[in-house]
């Protein structure tokens, strides 16, 4: 088990390294740099050269990459040109915001999706199961971009929820947490509901499959009530295929939260990276991409552990 975790950690380090290096080099290769993007085309040649020298943008790509790498080993990820602050200071706050959004959405999706999946998967007929199925098909056709637009629309019309941002300026102290939760509802639902639909469909399919197996028939024949079989005996084997999807969901979660962050003005990693890409803020782009890769690595590791919990065969 320890060897397994170590191996996964090594792969994760490699992933983070590859992703941040690639994004640094790609951003440097892009036409235009931070200087042209921020000074515009009318700046004098001397002013541009001075600025390039100050930020080290006049060095060759190879030289800049070497410098960045040497510093990164000491956990110094360079300076954001746009914010004039170290990347190391900028990212944690934004990354935490994205993590709050993603984890809440995943929790929401699990809590809503799995039980409803067991319910609709264990009943062939019935109004409730049909309703759940229909709701899932509708939500599957509403990716986070559309759910967030729809929810913001509802919020703007009804005034039930704030339509953007993460906190109200006026609220401090004990009310702050409540305020955060209030702001979190729309973005978390926007990311979480399509995921819930996906989990519901998977869980329903898995439950139906397991119920068809001989051991369920045998248990029923011994007189165990149907609902008890569904919710206890069939539950664990039915969770296996669903648990194996969680590893793929992490990427989905990050992609989905990007659209939602932009639309609901949630100050997360996606929004930071978008701004950095637009301004050709090379080190910040590399930092954001690397952080995203860290999320990804943790997510897949976490999902492997969950899979190991419900499926002994996966522990090998």
């Amino acid at each position, binding site marked *: 088990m320890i060897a397994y975790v170590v191996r996964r950690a090594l792969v994760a380090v490699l992933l983070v390294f590859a992703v941040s290096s690639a994004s640094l080099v790609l951003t440097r290769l*892009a036409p235009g740099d931070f200087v042209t993007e921020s000074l515009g085309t009318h700046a004098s040649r001397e002013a541009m050269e001075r600025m390039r020298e100050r930020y080290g943008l006049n060095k060759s790509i190879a030289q800049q990459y070497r410098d960045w790498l040497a510093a990164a080993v000491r956990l110094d990820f360079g300076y954001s040109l746009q914010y004039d602050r170290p990347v190391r200071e900028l990212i944690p706050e934004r990354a935490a915001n994205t993590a709050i959004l993603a984890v809440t959405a995943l929790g929401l999706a699990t809590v809503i999706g799995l039980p409803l999946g067991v319910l609709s998967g264990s009943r062939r007929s019935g109004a409730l199961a049909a309703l759940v199925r229909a709701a899932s098909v509708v939500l599957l056709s509403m990716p986070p971009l559309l759910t967030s637009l729809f929810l913001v629309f509802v919020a703007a019309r009804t005034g039930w929820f704030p339509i953007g941002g993460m906190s109200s300026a006026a609220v401090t102290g004990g009310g702050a947490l409540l305020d955060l939760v209030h702001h979190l509802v729309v973005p978390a639902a926007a990311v979480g509901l399509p*995921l819930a639909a996906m989990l519901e469909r998977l869980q329903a399919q898995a439950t139906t499959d397991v119920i068809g197996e001989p051991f369920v028939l045998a248990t029923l024949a011994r007189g165990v009530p149907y609902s008890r079989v569904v919710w206890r005996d069939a539950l664990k084997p039915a969770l296996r295929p669903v648990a194996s999807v969680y590893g793929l969901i992490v990427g989905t979660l990050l992609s989905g939260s990007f659209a939602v962050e932009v639309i609901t003005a949630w100050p997360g990693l996606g929004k930071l990276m978008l701004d950095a890409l637009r301004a050709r803020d090379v080190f910040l782009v590399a930092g954001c991409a690397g952080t995203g890769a860290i999320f990804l690595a943790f997510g897949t590791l976490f999902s492997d552990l969950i899979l190991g919990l419900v499926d002994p065969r996966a522990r090998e």
Partner: protein
Amino acid sequence: MRANSRTVGIAIVSVAAAIVFAAPALAPRPIDARFPGALNAPPTVPHVRDDDGAWHAPFIYPWTLANRLEQRYEQDRSVRVPLAWFENGHVVQSSDETRAPLLWLGTDTYGRDVFSRLVFGARVSLGLALAAALGSMIIGALVGGVAGYAGGITDDVLMRLTDFVMVLPGMYVALALRAVLPLVLPAEVVFALLAVIFAVVGAPFIARGVRAIVRSERTLDYAVAAEALGASPARLLIRHLLPSTRGFMAVEITLLVPAFIVAEATLSYVGLGFPDPTASWGTMLRDASNIRAFADFPWLLSPAVAMFVVVLGLNLAVQNQRAHGTIL
């Protein structure tokens, strides 16, 4: 129930396809025609009865600006403008296009007809998604086919690579690849560029499945026989093995198309998609990205509804229970 919903899905997709083909006839005007006196004007609803209760052929009341600052409009009930059917190469228009235009879905912030832009935008958005899905299919078939046929190290390397691309959040990859190129490009270049980027991001999902199918088909008698008869690897792969992945491909494409529709919308929404005045569903949503659109001009959000309907139609048509929708 299942058969019914499937029929509904097929109907939706057929209507969407028909709209794409008939766009120039359906749209009352080109995408960049502006009505400077009617910014953010609401839809004109066709009436058949006037205020006195008399019946007429379908007609509209023109909008008059009631409050320029708030962009509030009122119907001018004194003038009836009849609709003109099948004239000038358009299915239906107002008989007085310059002063009282027929606006099925109102106008946007620049005074452009939302319905016309939506219909022409369908060509761009759906065309791009389809082109990208076909691209994914070609790349995926190539990579998966070679990996499954060759086996060994080639297989290992190619599959590690696809696993790597698959685990990356597709939206970020597309974003990064798009952003390293000049931010403002002509529309045709953006179309080709996005199609290639999406094709690359979507290809691993196809490559994996193709590889599995090719691997198992390879050992079947007909493949062995073809090989024994001297078929070259390329011929064996293209003539015999890849055709067996048709069913899988068909399903995969219907999963990728919705994902690509949404990906285009997301990129255009954040300003990395098509330039103005090109109409795509994403650029239209970007124009709607302000609070007044949500509160006062809901017709600006019609591309979002169109996107939902098309994706739902595709999902119903193939009875899709999964979603690639959020992969990109």
